[in-house]
């Protein structure tokens, strides 16, 4: 599934980011491949707002389409 299918309030793991430039930017922001992100909101057909460690980023539709995610397993403890 891609980021556009994310449900607000759920955690996801970023599996793959297609565009190398976006991948690099995502690494800078701490939301790159392998990272655990939280879907804060989805605005209609518009941006997906994702969060990680206190910061939120609005990802535009075109970029979000190229980001593969998987639902994250709940943390122990």
């Amino acid at each position, binding site marked *: 599934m891609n980021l556009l299918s994310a449900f607000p309030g759920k955690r996801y793991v970023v599996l793959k980011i297609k565009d190398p*430039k976006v991948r690099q930017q995502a*690494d800078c922001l701490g939301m790159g491949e392998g990272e655990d992100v939280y879907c804060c909101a989805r605005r209609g*057909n518009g941006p997906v*707002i994702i969060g990680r*460690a*206190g*910061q939120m980023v*609005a990802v535009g539709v075109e970029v979000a389409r190229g980001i593969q995610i998987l639902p994250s397993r709940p943390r122990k403890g």
Partner: protein
Amino acid sequence: MVGNPNVGKSVVFTNLTRRYAEVSNYPGTTVEVSRGFWLGHQVADTPGVYGLTGANEEERLTEALLADAEVIVNVVDATRLRRDLFLTLQLSGRGVPMVVVVNMMDEVRRLGQRLDLAKLETLLGVPVVAATAVHGEGMDELAQVLGHLCHKKKNSARRLQDSASLRARANEIYEKIAAPGGAPGLSPLDKWLTRPLSGLLTAALVMAIIWWLIGRMAADKVVGFTEGIVFNRWLLPPLVRMLTSIVPPGLLQQILIGDFGLLTMALAYGIGLLLPLVFSFYLLLSLLEDSGYLPRLAVLLDNAFRPLGLNGKGVIPLILGFGCVTMAVISTRMLSTRRERIILSFLLGLAVPCSAQTGVIAMMLVPMGLGWLALYAACSRRS
């Protein structure tokens, strides 16, 4: 001075150099490099960057400045340390003496978080200073550390790791010095401002207020006073009388006090007309920036602006363009890429009539009837 956008670099810069740098809470405020001096050493305040990947103009400019840097002051946001450590690791690999200023420590204390900065210093191998730059906290310590670093020699640069390895290392360091944070979420106000119905209503209200304040209050009332009364009634008549008696009629008199004279027109227009407009425009723009409203508006309108090759932030210059296109073109600086700035400048030049043009267009259309007015409105929407 290097750091992520919106971490307080400009405040640290001002504290060090006693020179004002434009400060606001909107990323990208430092659009140019501000330079000042600290004890005879030049200090450069670079634009905010998330990393040094050469992805945009700001990153390339920062890279170029770093090539000549003798000391790096890396300012990081204590509440976004996980994110900021990526850039810190990139910088620490360059072999240039460096100090990390962990800014906004008051926020960390307020949120009840804990950061082990002594451990961070050990893990990074560079001095770390805790600071709250807006209150001047940590600035004396920074000055002391800088005093030592200025005499240190550069080491050879380490080979840079790829971004994924750097991120993994940044996360590893962060987990050793801080407790994991909870899931972030939108506040009720964020939800209100970014939901389509409530967000659009608020946006319409904000735009109406801006239009009223600039278009009606500043352009009408304030300019009516400064140009119409202060200049045209109080200042210019005695000035013209005095110069008429001193300067003989001819070219010089025309240049000074003629219909398009330096004093009669340039001074009156520059100070009486444009200054109040520019001042009120920047006052409102900085209020929007400081309130954090612009990113929320960008999220709300992103969808509508995508077909134009723009993002939601483009709405502000477009609306301002209906008041004054010149001011609107200046405000395109808030867009992140050159491409977006060019698209929007063309749109403003070609498709958005300013208040004066709108008046002329309306006057021309009225005698032609409602049908032509509707056709013009439809064509304007299409363009």
